[in-house]
């Protein structure tokens, strides 16, 4: 009986060993995340404009590699091999925590929806998207010129990792444009940052023009155009910084052909409360000033303040202002004059947008 018991025990143990842990015995391959050898960036040379947010989204093609993956910028260098790690230095930037809607009631409310974080100026996120934050300025990055020498180009590699292994995608490069703090910026030479001319080293300056409709020229009684020339009218838009202030304001100003301020109140049908997403409107006889959050628009979200309004669901990248007045025209018809401008301002500051009626003043009086 003892023997039998012993045999049974041995048998039982043998079976346990034999029937368990099969997967190990069979030496089957373990499942790993997939990391394709064909993963690639659709774009390897980045030409962002400094001083504003540049997000290159959806440019990484993982070729069905298993997300999530980790991405890391490695080997930041210049074309001649010098280290270019300085572009990875962390600087404070604003990141969103809640969605901007356009219905916020104060600058503080907008600012409550974003916070300051330290982020590298050049960053790659887990999707492979490349971000150049507004903190990247020409202090660190040398802006591109009409000729860029290889030793000035900043190169970097991206290291992609998941449990399936590691791959390095090589030789991505950044050749940025210098800061252009606002849009439209026909008046800035994007290589030198100086006033733009029609021809290199020329003297004829380029200008920004607003959109004008329905206005009559004072004295000409003819339709007024933004870029009509001579008696048909020339109207420039200047977007420029105003000295002093808190860095959170935007004002609008109108100048007549003598460069004397026109009272904004003359644009009597302007919807002042829907002009910009600004608060604490201050209207003087020279300008209208708002407290605003920068950049303008703060996010690429269509609101009633952006070009096309909320029905332009693809828009939201530029703000839109419209100043309207009406007067009685010939034959007693009511005529409406509109001056409007699409714009964006990327740099925080105290800015003003000036509409300068250069040659002909608008006619506000009734006929």
């Amino acid at each position, binding site marked *: 009986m003892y*023997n*039998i018991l012993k*045999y049974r025990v041995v*048998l039982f143990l043998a*079976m346990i060993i*034999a*029937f368990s842990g*099969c*997967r190990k*015995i*069979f030496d*089957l*391959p*373990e*499942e*790993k995340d*997939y*990391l*394709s*050898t064909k993963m690639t960036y659709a774009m390897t040379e980045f030409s962002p404009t400094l001083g504003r*947010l540049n*997000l290159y*989204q*959806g440019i*990484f093609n*993982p070729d*069905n590699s*298993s*997300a*999530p*993956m980790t991405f890391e910028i490695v080997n930041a260098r210049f074309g001649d091999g010098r280290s270019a790690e300085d572009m990875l230095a962390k600087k404070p930037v604003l*990141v*969103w*925590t*809640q*969605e*901007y809607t356009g219905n916020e009631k104060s600058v503080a409310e907008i600012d409550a*929806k*974003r916070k300051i*974080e330290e982020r590298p100026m050049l960053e790659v*996120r*887990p*999707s*492979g*998207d490349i*971000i150049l934050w507004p903190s990247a300025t020409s202090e660190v990055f040398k802006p591109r010129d009409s000729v860029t020498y290889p030793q000035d180009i900043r190169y970097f590699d991206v290291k992609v990792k998941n449990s*399936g292994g590691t791959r390095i995608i090589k030789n991505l490069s950044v050749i940025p444009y210098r800061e252009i703090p606002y849009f439209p910026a026909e008046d800035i030479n994007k290589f030198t940052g100086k006033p733009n001319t029609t021809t290199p080293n020329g003297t004829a300056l380029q200008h920004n023009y607003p959109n004008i409709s329905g206005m009559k020229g004072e004295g000409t009684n003819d339709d007024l155009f933004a870029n009509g020339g001579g008696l048909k009218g020339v109207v420039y838009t200047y977007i420029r910084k105003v000295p002093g202030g808190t860095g959170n304001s935007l004002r609008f100003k109108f100048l007549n052909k003598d460069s004397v301020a026109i009272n904004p109140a003359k644009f009597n049908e302007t919807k002042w409360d829907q002009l910009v997403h600004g608060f604490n409107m201050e209207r003087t006889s020279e300008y209208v000033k708002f407290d605003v959050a920068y950049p303008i628009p*703060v*996010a*690429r*979200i*269509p609101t009633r303040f952006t070009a096309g309004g*909320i029905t332009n*669901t*693809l828009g*939201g990248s530029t703000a839109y202002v419209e100043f309207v007045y009406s007067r009685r025209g010939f034959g007693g018809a009511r005529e409406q004059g509109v001056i409007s401008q699409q714009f964006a301002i990327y740099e925080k500051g105290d800015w003003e947008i000036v509409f300068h009626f250069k040659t002909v003043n608008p006619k506000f009086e009734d006929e």
Partner: protein
Amino acid sequence: MRKQVILLSIFFSCIFLCKDLVAQTKKVTVSGTVKDGGSNDTMVGVSVATGKPLKVLTQTDSKGHYSVSVDDGATLVFTYVSYGTKTIKLNAGQTTLNVTLKEDNKTMEEVVIRGYQKRTREVTTGSSFIVSGKEVQDVPVSNVEQLLQGKVAGLNIQLNTGAPGLRGTINIRGLSTISTTGSGNETFLQPTSPLYVIDGVPMDADKASEYGFQQQGPGVSPISLIPQEDIASIEVLKDATATALYGSRGAYGVILIQTVRGNSAVPRIRYTGNFYMNAIPKLRSILGGNAERELKLYQINTYGRFRDQYMVSNTPFLADSLNPYYNNSTDWQGVFYQNTYNQTHNVQLDGGDTKFSYKTNLSYFSDKGIIKNTGFDRYSLNMNMDYKPTERISFFGSIRGNVGKIKKANGVGLLQTGVAADGQKSSLLPGPSFFQATSSVLSALQTNTDAGPKNLNTYIEGRYELIPGLNLTSAASYDYNVDTEDTFTPAAANDQFAKIYSFYGYTSQLYNRNNVSYTRSLNEKHNFFLNLFSEMYIKKGQSSITRLERSPNDQFQGPLGYDGYYSRGGGILTSFYDQNQISFAAAFTYDFEKKYIFDLTYRIDGTSNNGNKEPYSKNPSVGLKWNFNKENWLKDLKWLNYGDIRVTAGRNIFPVGNLIDIYGKYIPRGFYNNNPRVGIDYEYVPNPLLRPKKVTQFNLGFDLGLFNGKLDVIFDTYYKKVDNELFVSQLSNTLAFSKYTSNDAALANYGYELSFTSRPLAKDSKFNWTISVNGAWNNDVLTKLPEEYNGQFIEFDFNSGYSQHLAKRIGRNSLANYLYVNQGVYDSTNDVPIDPVTGLRYRNNDSGDFLNSFQGGDARFYDANGDYVLDSRDLQVVGNTQPVLTGGMSNTLSYTMPSGSTLSLNIYATYTAKRSILNNALADRLRLLNNPFGIKDGVYGKNPLTVVPVNDLNMWTGPGSTNARFANAYDYAHNAFANNYRYEQTLWMETGSYFKINQITLSYSFAKKMARRIGLNNIRTFLSASNIVTFSPYTGPNPEGVTAIGRDGSNGYPVPRVYNLGFNVEF
């Protein structure tokens, strides 16, 4: 030389004369009656034998009597199929001997077949399971396969279509292929049915279905042509040693079917009739009439954009509620579905004695489908005969002729796409009536199909015993199968032009086997068995079609061809084949006192499907078995009836690939100098190195019989490796050819199988109760892909509209889904994550359009790569399309009344667990709400769809619905941007676990004397029901009615519930 001759003659004289040298003894005449130990009935046709080797002297007559003349004190052996053999030694001078035989339940003494040779299970090492013919009666089915469901551990059968005459899927021990064709719900997994061997003739059950859902022709498997009444037993061979000798096609397992043989001294006529009803399973409930309109208007008024409100008045079926055309409540499903009443009749005649016996089986089977205009009829006549003029010579011959007829409405059989599309029509539209016809309805109901296979199979086998123990056998069979289909669609059903489709195909198989076997026993201790054989196949098949897109009128249904312009030709299909196979095999078995058994087989297979560089493959197998209950130290254990441990290993092949893969395809390539020329098709580069699929299997198992038959346990664990799996790789576009078929994929299965059978009651009880439970756990793992894929291949599906991609990743289950992960529903818009960089809300597709932003009530899709945009980069490999756990259980309780009548109750159940299926039926149901205007091709109201109520679902209804599972389906306008009900998401991936009560049979056998009173030998009547109820957490209609890769489309054929009343009468 002379000496040798003398020696030889002495040797042969000894062999031939030794019988006669036995001393003469006194003869006595012994007589008696043989009774059934269970029912106490007399038994007809019991063989009475004596001597060594056993010689059958007689069989019992119709009253169970026998009378034999034997030596005084001889030993008599009584045998009867499926009853225990009784051996009784006569006392000196005994002349009466009454015997009772007991039904045999001992697994170990079953006769099994290995390499076309009968052996007892005790001395074979392979893993197999026998299902008796009795277990596959009582429920009328067109395809006997479906009655095996859940009866054999490791045999996974999914009854995924209810289409009459067509098959579900069947796999032994997990997945054997990763090859899929088609897309969407029609993604078709290459079937890997086991090889069927019917009375020694191999048959390819996949013949009709290997070309997917959109196949041509009737699509009836040859297995559907075998009447279930004609089946005596089915044996399922699972491991490599058992299947080794079926080598060249045995890689997917082997199922052996023995048909009934003549077995009665008195000619018998047995009649089986079944009268049954196919009942429509629960169809989906829909909102009818005004309720449908109200819901659509509610959707538009609540969620519509401005233009939508305006378009209501331009969409008459919504606005014009008083128009009688739009004021209906039509039950479209009811137009197509019906309950049907069917019958089957089977007459079996058999008779004969040990020298000559015969059997004829005549059968009629009819199954009208629950979808109108579908059905399957079968007529078959099967005959066989055994002829043994002497003990040493025997012949067996059989002929089977079967005709099937199938009606498929306008579907292709497995799918009823037309019916599914019509079933989705708006209930507001008027139904078909005397005044109003709908072309799609007509095409489903009036399409006239004349289709079906016609099959003739002949087989003859001769056996000669040269010297005792040395047998020569030669067998040949010829199988010819014709498939035809003629489909005529009347003009009213097909845009005013009648359409004709015609298919003709044939397959033939010539098969020959020659066999030498030798058994030898030394001192009753050392037993040897050697079997050598050769096998040869010549298989041919070709099919062709022709189509006439427009025939002149409804009266012109053929001959085909009046106009070249509308003739779509078709010609010979690429399913053409011409295969030759030749194999040589040897099997050797040695056992010591039946205690230690050693099996060795070796087989060389040459097939013309291989690349011509390596035509032969060599397949060895080895098996060991230890019957430990025969050990002296266990002999005394009363509770151990038998016990053994088996270890086997071996290899099998299956020819894959076709002639095109090996030799390329040559097509007409225009003209050169005005002469037509033929050139290679640049799609596939020929691969002369193509090898057959190789399946290597290791098996370890044990069998235990405990407590005198009260409990039988069979356990197996196995590792099955499938190498040389075909894989089509895309070639670089700088090469001339675009695709390359290689053998560079591989997968493996490992798992466990366990079967318990228990007969808890005492053997002499009036009650007989048998419970058996079995289960199989199978994991499959993909082990290899072509090198260049680096471990993962995604089979993208962009064309079907479903986008449910399949992922094949090394180290994981071979066929996974590649989907978006759904993590619930956003309770409110504030819960949607914001991209910290841009401040934009998480968006669908791309970040450009603000309307793509997710909002409260939208599905919470997992943003795997963290870019706040949901796109194809966020797809994840998830789920397992193949079931991991399958099995079944049966419960049989019978009671023998004092009168001798027997009442028995049978319950069969099957289960499947751990499988993910994609509930596209639910997806379709919710997506019906996406289009309240019935917009098609940009036209409002062109295709109004029905509405299925969704208020039973846990759907988001507003902020606060925190645990909602489904996004707001009513907001169709936003869904157009958010695509919450996309098909490619895990919301539809549900567990496919189910427990199904397959079959309940209540039968009553009248006592023999009662039957005799009305001049019959035996009467049995039974009531049965099948597909009775399925318990499942699955929310779709039927967790089993899904395709082989787990897609539950709404265009499948529902499995009907069947109620049957049947009779067995024996004259």
